[in-house]
């Protein structure tokens, strides 16, 4: 058996609304090996969260619809599974951490019961054992056992996100999808949570998809990076390679937009223009209206995913068959 844990092929997801069809994810390809962390980076509306929801089979339908593509997890095609089978996968083999710890917990259940709930659903344990398991998980994420009977509103944002992490890891999942897990937190608390995630990932040997807009977090925690723009991955490579040798004009633009605390450059070089409207994407390469290196054919031909060096993929005509 190969090391590939998750493979997404040609995934296309649309949201069909009264105002038009939102092309949220377009021909997306991704793969992830066991135990690896993949950073999925992009700006608002790039399709990061929809991609994550597709992996979990949670795209709201209607209005969402998977138009095309496959998601293969541990060699099995997820879209062919029944709802009951999917339920065995979700929360058990794949679990998810959501962005906002204020709204992803149940306000009227103690944190211990919330963790025990997941354990009871997926593991053959008694209620008492599940509670013990919950306390053990709380300890792992750095919450004292005497707080187990408290409710989410009694915890600070950072502590709540720890509870969410405890729930996600309670069944020892093979894959953890973290959707902007630290965006709502202050930077010193973010550092605590990232450190904790790093440790736990090592301990449980969990593979992770880290969805973020912050390239700093990617540098900190990921092995591989996929950059998303307008619903598709425009560049994917190992972290070192992507940070030292970015190829796609959008990736380069992203790096130039970040104020760097280590350098004295005073003028940022932003990407011109705005994200395209996903109901009305430009023809050809969706980035061409904002691209400084756009060529006439960029508005006509949709670039193919090209492997320019080992494990470094770019979707850009500059690199597509010699450009």
């Amino acid at each position: 058996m190969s090391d590939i844990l998750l493979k997404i092929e040609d995934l296309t997801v649309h949201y069909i609304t009264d105002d038009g069809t939102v092309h949220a994810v377009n021909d997306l390809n991704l793969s992830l090996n066991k135990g690896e962390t993949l950073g999925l980076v992009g700006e608002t509306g790039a399709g990061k969260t929809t991609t994550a929801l597709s992996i979990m089979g949670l795209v709201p339908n209607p209005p969402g619809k998977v138009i095309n593509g496959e998601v293969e997890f541990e060699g099995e095609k997820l879209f062919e599974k029944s709802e009951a089978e999917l339920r065995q996968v979700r929360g058990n083999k794949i679990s998810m951490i959501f962005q906002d710890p204020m709204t992803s917990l149940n306000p009227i259940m103690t944190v211990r019961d919330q963790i025990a709930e997941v354990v009871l659903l997926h593991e053959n344990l008694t209620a008492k054992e599940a509670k013990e398991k919950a306390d053990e998980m709380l300890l792992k994420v750095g919450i004292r056992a005497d707080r187990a009977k408290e409710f989410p509103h009694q915890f600070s944002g950072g502590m709540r996100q720890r509870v969410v992490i405890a729930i996600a890891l309670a069944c020892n999942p093979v894959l953890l999808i973290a959707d902007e897990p630290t965006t709502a937190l202050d930077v010193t608390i973010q550092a605590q949570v990232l450190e904790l995630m790093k440790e736990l990932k090592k301990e449980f040997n969990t593979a992770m998809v880290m969805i973020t807009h912050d390239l700093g977090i990617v540098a900190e925690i990921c092995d591989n990076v996929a950059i998303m723009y307008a619903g598709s991955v425009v560049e994917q490579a190992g972290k070192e390679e992507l940070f030292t040798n970015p190829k796609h004009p959008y990736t380069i633009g992203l790096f130039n937009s970040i104020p760097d605390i280590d350098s004295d450059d005073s003028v940022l070089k932003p990407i011109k223009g705005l994200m395209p409207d996903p109901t009305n994407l430009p023809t050809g390469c969706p980035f061409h209206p904002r691209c400084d290196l756009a060529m006439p054919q960029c508005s006509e031909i949709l670039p193919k995913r090209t492997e320019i060096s080992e494990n470094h993929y770019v979707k850009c005509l500059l690199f597509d068959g010699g450009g």
Partner: protein
Amino acid sequence: MSNTLLEVKNLKKYFKTTKGMLHAVDDISFTINRGETLGLVGESGCGKSTTGRVVLRLLESTAGEVLFGGADVLAFNKKELRRFRENAQIVFQDPFASLNPRMTVAEIIGEPLVINKKTSNRADLYKRVIKLMDTVGLASRFENSYPHELDGGRRQRIGIARALALNPSFIVQDEPVSALDVSIQAQILNLMDELQKEFKLTYLFISHDLGVIKHVSKNIAVMYLGKIVEMSDYSSIFKNPLHPYTKALLSAIPIPRVDKKRERIILEGDVPNPIEPPPGCRFYGRCFCRKDICKDTDPELKQVSETRFVACHVAT
């Protein structure tokens, strides 16, 4: 004319709560020179936004002094306050909440001119609104759009145009880019920089993002729980932070690079409650180099070199 535009002395703002006094801003002092930017950085709840509001008298202070061009802002009567507000403006954090949804872009930008009777006829008003839109890079075709039709970056441009309408000399920028994506954030930061040079503006720039603060500021003040713990010119604070909190804050920022590994300082616990804080250093409970004296004696902000101030018993 003195070079100092804004001088804040021993400013305090307490809020009464059912559990006691909340010390939002507790005895802070700073000055900003004309045409310069002071970056005010800190985490949620440290009092940075409250400071911005008290300085503009959008909130009344509990104690202290605010001198604007030498005049005592806190003693202004209604008429003087109105004149002051023509000169001192604010750009808010959330471009989704700070614009009236029932007004068009042109109405929002023109409103300060109308309220302050700066224009007598419609043609003049229109001309000035279009000019303001052009200044902040908003295409004139949006004049009749409503805020909800525009994206976050454009909305923030409306907020900036509105702040510029009365030709102010001073603008409080309250987290103006934190709701925006990085590529748009960079556009807005560059715009603010250009405007500052063109109109010789003075900024109090409030942000939780040290990268952004460094990019825009000449001087930086770091706040923690209502106090300024360190204040310095921008380069030395990054090269050689003195206060343990500044050190931890700097080391906590994930840097988008792979070629450099930094020492990480992970702080224990959360920011404590600002209601009736105990005596002693506010940072005591989380500090990694605390001493006995820190527990009971609150360190004062002391000058350690020409451009540097720090409030710490250990660092000085």
